[in-house]
């Protein structure tokens, strides 16, 4: 075994650590309501990084997509599901109007929070849309990574679809350790 040492690499954004407290935030949703993460203690919270004009996001929300049924399946069991859009002003997918329309078009039953400054996205280390985070009832981050192993609905090299996010939510809801707590996310880059 080769010894490892921590290295301060310049230029690498700090990211939220799995197992550590999830960075707190207050953000405004497309309907004008406000969401404060700390107020959701006691509940399992799922964060879905969102951009309605990214093909990967479209793929999971269009008819038959992986996120057409999964959020409602969990929110009906008391899980809080939040979309967060960190597109900067003038960048793809930005703005209250565009995201309100996406909620209507895709019949989303959960809020889309606007993080135009990108501060929340950077605090979590959100790199892609989608990029998924699961927070336990204590407020600790328990999963960070990909929605599943099937970018644009195709498993690279074939094989079965594994929904990492679904497995993580199920484990946290059941009070169990998340089997794979961290995966490499895929998708469009977040438009900071």
């Amino acid at each position: 075994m080769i010894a490892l040492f921590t290295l301060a690499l310049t230029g690498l954004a700090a990211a939220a650590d799995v197992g550590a407290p999830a960075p707190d935030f207050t953000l405004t949703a497309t309907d004008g309501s406000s969401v404060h993460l700390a107020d959701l203690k006691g509940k399992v919270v799922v964060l879905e990084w969102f951009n309605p004009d990214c093909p990967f996001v479209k793929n999971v929300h269009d008819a038959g997509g992986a996120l057409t049924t999964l959020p409602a399946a969990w929110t009906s069991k008391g899980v809080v599901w939040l979309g967060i859009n960190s597109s900067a002003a003038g960048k793809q997918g930005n703005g209250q109007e565009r995201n309100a329309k996406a909620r209507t078009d895709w019949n989303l039953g959960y809020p889309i929070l606007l993080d135009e400054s990108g501060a929340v996205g950077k605090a979590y280390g959100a790199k892609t849309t989608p990029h998924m985070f699961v927070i336990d009832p204590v407020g600790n981050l328990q999963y960070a990574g990909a929605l599943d192993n099937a970018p644009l609905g195709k498993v690279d090299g074939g094989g079965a679809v594994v929904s990492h996010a679904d497995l993580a939510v199920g484990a946290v809801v059941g009070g169990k350790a998340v089997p794979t707590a961290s995966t490499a996310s895929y998708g469009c880059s977040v438009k900071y």
Partner: protein
Amino acid sequence: MSGIAPLVTAVLVTTTVESTPHLAVVYTIEPGWHIYWENPGDSGMPTVAEFSRGELPPSSAPQADSRGLVGPAKYPGPDKFVGAGDIVNYGWENQATLLFALTDHAFSGTIHTETRWLACREDGCVPGSASLSLVLPSAPVVVDTSRLPSPLAGVETPTSLTFQLPDVTEVFLDTALSAVASKTIISGGTVRVELRAARPPGAKLVAKSGGKYYQVPEVP
């Protein structure tokens, strides 16, 4: 987004690399856009191509026999793109060629490939795919092999190193990436990195685990 002209066009040809027959998929990319390397980095999607014998695409022909037809993809070394929010990606602009050794030298008839890519620039991405056929034997075409890992023989017998670190999600080289391709096999906290060519001087291996970055010290 561009209107009529496709952002990326893909062409299937045969070529000769180091005296051995290869299939090549040549991607021509609209200026300002890029497609992705085997490891796309923080976002994006690897460019992939799957081969089968015959006219039908592999997805609609589960019986299609691709065994022993071609070797694994040989990806040219990528460029590094750093976008807003320090999002790092690896891929190519303008043109890229994926090479596959034709392992069934005796094959004659139609060969088919399904290829998929994601074309992106700073303001957006467009997924693409192509369904290509070629009748073999076919006259070899000269393609750009200047960015392939060298020597190519190293692809078959990679040097490797092993270390232990839980929850590693990514391993990459922090410099001179264009000269070396690496791959990881992760199980139970053990990571094996396979180097397809000699690491360039000064190149450091970096592993990402639980949101932190670790340097893997140089090993003999």
